[in-house]
């Protein structure tokens, strides 16, 4: 009977459903999602790359002139890079919707796709 009462109670209650994507749940502070690198702060020390457990970061070039690549398909969103960076150049935003349908002929495309952070080049 306890169950039946519970069932009927829910008839009058509003469903717990959040009609995502038409309505978003309350954001929780500090959730870890998309990685963003402020390339102007980066000094190219390589600590983040050294510590990343999923090989999701890559440096193009060296030191102060380097650019960075981030592979969303490899990243496990652990936040170690944020932790490691001595210059606080990396942060994680709350953007979760990173899914993609773009097809590329070559197999293993998702691990090859990356977001590139480029330093503005001096003329």
């Amino acid at each position: 009977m306890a169950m039946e009462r519970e069932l009927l109670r829910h008839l009058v209650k509003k469903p717990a459903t959040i009609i995502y994507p038409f309505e978003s749940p309350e954001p929780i502070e500090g959730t870890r999602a998309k990685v963003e690198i402020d390339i102007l702060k980066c000094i190219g020390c390589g600590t983040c790359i050294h510590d990343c457990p999923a090989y999701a970061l890559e440096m193009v070039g060296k030191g102060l002139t380097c650019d960075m690549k981030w592979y969303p398909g490899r990243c496990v969103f652990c936040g170690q890079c944020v932790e490691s960076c001595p210059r606080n150049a990396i942060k994680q935003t709350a953007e979760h919707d990173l899914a993609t349908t773009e097809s590329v002929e070559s197999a293993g495309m998702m691990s090859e796709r990356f977001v590139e952070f480029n330093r503005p080049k001096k003329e």
Partner: protein
Amino acid sequence: MDIIKWARIKSPWVFHFNAGGCNGCDIEVLASLIPRYDIERFGMILRGSPRHADVMLLTGTVTRQIKDRLIRIYEQMAEPKFVMAIGSCAMSGGVFQNCYSVYEGADKVIPVDVYVPGCPPRPQAIIDGAVKLLQKLAAGK
């Protein structure tokens, strides 16, 4: 045939296959069924038999041991069929990249239609992946 296309978009039944993941993705796939997220809103029902399903929710690293199973299950699904690779394991191997017993990415084994990054992707992200798949269907194919 517009009506068929409409029906397909409105009724994607899913089937969950764990190819060797860590559980993280699997519980999040299940979590997308629960009241908070409720993917039945889109007409998505979780089926136990691959023959009934349109979309395979593939989670986890594809291990060498399970590869043949995966291909067989994929073949059992009736056309038209789609595959959603969920989690970084299914996309690239995630932290298990370069382990001797895994394939680095499910798309080395079967064709994949949607990729959902995350480890594990939260239910919203999975829904987002599903919606993007449906949009892709609506746009063509």
